[in-house]
């Protein structure tokens, strides 16, 4: 199975280029956790249900992403530090199309 590469800027500004398998049904929040790019307990608090916004990230490249669901949209409406390119990383499943994706994690809140 193919692995893809994703560039993730963590909350301290450090850039990580990580290899991600496309056959493990992972989402981006889980990738960040699996590489331990932020302290455990500060991301994915709700487990990936779009109910806490602790995994908010900014999309920095122009990859085509799955459309935002209403859960994610309304959760972001209550999150802080939201920008036009904000997404909840738990709502973005890993697919081959995401190769080269660049994201930055939003501050913890």
């Amino acid at each position: 199975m193919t692995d893809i590469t994703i560039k993730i800027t963590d909350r301290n500004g450090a850039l990580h280029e990580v290899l991600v398998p496309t056959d493990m049904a992972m989402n981006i929040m889980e990738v960040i956790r699996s590489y331990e790019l932020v302290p455990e307990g500060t991301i994915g608090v709700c487990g990936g249900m779009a109910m806490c916004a602790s995994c908010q990230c900014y999309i920095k490249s122009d990859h085509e992403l799955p459309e935002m669901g209403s859960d994610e949209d309304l959760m972001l409406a209550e999150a802080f530090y939201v920008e036009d390119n904000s997404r909840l990383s738990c709502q973005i499943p890993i697919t081959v199309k995401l190769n080269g994706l660049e994201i930055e994690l939003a501050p913890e809140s």
Partner: protein
Amino acid sequence: MIKTDILIIGAGPTGLFTVFEAGLLKLKCHLIDALPQPGGQCSEIYPKKPIYDIPAYPEILAGDLTEKLLEQIASFQPGFTLGERAETIEKLEDDTFIVTTNKGTKHHAPVIAIAGGLGSFEPRKPPIPNIAEFENSGVEYIIRDPEIYRNKKVVIAGGGDSALDWAIFLTNVASEVSLVHRRNEFRGALDSVEKVQELKNTGKIKLITPAEVKEIHGKDHLTGVSIILNKNETIHLEADHFIPLFGLSPKLGPIGNWGLEIEKNAIKVNNALDYQTNIPGIYAIGDVNTYPGKLKLILCGFHEATLMCQSAYKRIYPNKKYVMKYTTVGGVEGFDGTKKEAPKAVVKKIE
């Protein structure tokens, strides 16, 4: 001073099930939780969401799991200190502990079981630069006493159930209620949304959407807020209180300073034996602990609670002989005088 055998910090599923396992051993439990209701994340974050990996329940809502656990432990009469956060711990000369909450409630027990999940739930505070200056003078993240809003001008921010419910409630108390949200859509229960619509139509709630409170003003006490409307227009609103209701997020908090060994925001325990921490008599179970191979699952918390109670029993009664009994054999004898037991087989002679 509240006295008990096992003081459980955290009333989520793991903490609640601990009461049952302790009860089988005739040990009494008392629980402390920062939230005003038991259930932890199951009741606070996702009560209406299904869980599929509770053994023997192909599907159960998180809120229903909490209800069932409370029913299962009811006869063991657990005590609760809710809406208070465990703040400090003191070890006495006889190796027992005193845990004091942020409101000064003291609890005394020979065994402490930390079942704190990801930590205690703290309100999420919007990033408004001077907000901290008003935390005792007009900004409240949690409504404790609605009477302080009587005949006052109140601005509520948020789009979930608590923002909607309090906006509705305060229309009968405050002189003016404004509800500010970044969208026109709300995430709350449908009947609350409809009620707010009705109150808006009759002029009892001033609905300001899509908008965001960006600044707060005042000298000794809050006097108003500045709101960005439609992303470009700034409006100023007079107010006595600003209540941001953006939900809660868990923080490990004061437990992190109890001298326990912490790794990755979790408490290290001995999983080869009994889930005890580096301080004898303090155990950590459920999502709050870590050990090689740890999984943050409710069912793992149940297992950890069970083994932990056996160890707690030996700590409290070091010289007592004890052997594990199946509940089917021994029944369940509550502290309230009730007894559940398997019905005896009917024996009838054949003539």
